[in-house]
């Protein structure tokens, strides 16, 4: 195990915006689930609710797995 050269300030800025992007993606997923569950219940029967949440879960899984596969 050895050490690399110290990081440049530019790297730090890029790192921070990458972090922010990741956080925003996941925060928006959380918002979709929170608003989604309430609006689907608001709109009507269990079929719509389960359908909408099912699609949300699928998209989430595809995204979550896809992101890691790419790396």
């Amino acid at each position: 195990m050895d050490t690399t050269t110290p990081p440049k300030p530019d790297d730090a800025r890029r790192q921070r915006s990458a972090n922010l992007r990741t956080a925003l993606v996941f925060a928006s997923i959380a918002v979709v689930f929170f608003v989604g569950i309430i609006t689907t219940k608001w709109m009507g029967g269990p079929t719509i609710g389960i359908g909408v949440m099912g699609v949300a879960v699928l998209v989430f899984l595809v995204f979550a797995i896809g992101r890691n596969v790419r790396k």
Partner: protein
Amino acid sequence: MSSIPHDHAAAHGEGPDGHAHHPTGIMRWITTTNHKDIGTMYLWFSFTMFIVGGCMALTIRAELFQPGLQVVNPEFFNSMTTLHGLIMVFGALMPGAVGFANWMIPMQIGAPDMAFARMNNWSFWLLPPAAILLVGSLFVPGGAAAAGWTMYPPLTIQAGMGMDFTIFAVHIMGASSIMGSINIITTILNLRAPGMTLMKMPLFCWTWLITAYLLIAVMPVLAGAVTMLLTDRHFGTTFFNAAGGGDPVLFQHVFWFFGHPEVYIIILPAFGIVSEIIPTFSRKPLFGYASMVYAVAAIAILSFIVWAHHMFTTGLPTAGILFYMYATMLIAIPTGVKVFNWLATMWKGSLTFEAPMLFAIGFLFLFTLGGFTGLVCAIQPIDVQIQDTYYVVAHFHYVMVAGTLFAFFGGTYYWLPKWCGRMYDAKLAEAHFWLSFVFFNVTFFPMHFLGLAGMPRRVPDYAQQFADWNMVASIGSFGFGFTQLLFFYIVVKAIRSGAKAPAKPWEGATTLEWTVPSPAPYHTFETPPFVK
């Protein structure tokens, strides 16, 4: 790949060396953005809540020591079962896991800190107000919530203002969990040291990454469910209120959409801890690393499609029953993969049985038993008989206590030398294990018999034929409770006067955290290590 020490130093008002001007005393803890400080606070908070929830459990067991009503009135008894569940799940087990994550994830992936250090502070400091709301609700008119930790309507629509306290507490703890999860995901995805590919990460980091994904998906759903409860209670909506055309069973669907993944949120970090301990004390690499990662992912994905196994008696269509039954049983496959991999790791290893390993092996035995009774519950024709009986109580305590809590004890004994730089009394720690192991089984094994014989859960009184095993369980529970005072003593004694710990007290340990001195310096890996 870079680290971010510069802006951290600026954000802390630290000097250029990054170490000057720390606030001291209480202000250090209130304003800290250091992952180690925050991890420590999470762990102490978790232990405090464990004691509070444990006292409630002992109140329950004291009342159930004999048939009849002796100790508390039935309303208070119901509050005890409700708060015990909420406090143990949201106050003790989840924050405990986050405490381990805060301490260990940055050190295991070679990151200088969590990605969002100030949000990390905020995540923690949301918890004490939530705990105060929960415990404080005992003192409001009408008493604390008493409808069970699952908060089913219609009871929770009719209950007093203690329920509102509970709803707000759940909101706050949910927000804390979501922020913590975003932090963990970002840290793991973006801050790994050069060379630390995802498939080289210690398994503890993997289990937490997947746990955080689960939390992001299901905590907002729980928040939505209790928000709808709140509007049903106060703003005239009728989501779950049958009187206005709502459907109480709908709440159960939404709650268990959260509730089942929640079980894995609690157990996966424990899997991670055990997967660190067993290879170390077997002096062999973890058997089947990649299959372990895929098994954890498979468990997480399956956890989204099994929730209605909690609702087999609500009148599901037959096709639904069959689907949820088989889907639930499928989870046994990835879980079995993990158990066999742990066994294969130990196979022909040069095993030693220090306290962390004892707890890991205790976990292996008892968690597997709890997983097995879960399969029994998953068989719908059997579940119709045993749902809401003590069999279910026995099942999930084998998973939550002998599973997660034992893993937390093991993890504490494993990493305590790294945290505080001192060794603990090994003999006492082994005594802690054996006493916990025996008293745990004395408490919870008889509950299988009680449940099979038909004793319902959440009742303060019971028929005469259940008396003997209840007495045994109550005796065991007090033994288990007092044993945990020994744990407190062991930890405090180690912190105050333990022998100095070397950087790597366990010769078989291989992960990055053991390359830094003990206690771990306030800042580690400010220049990222290179992982080959």
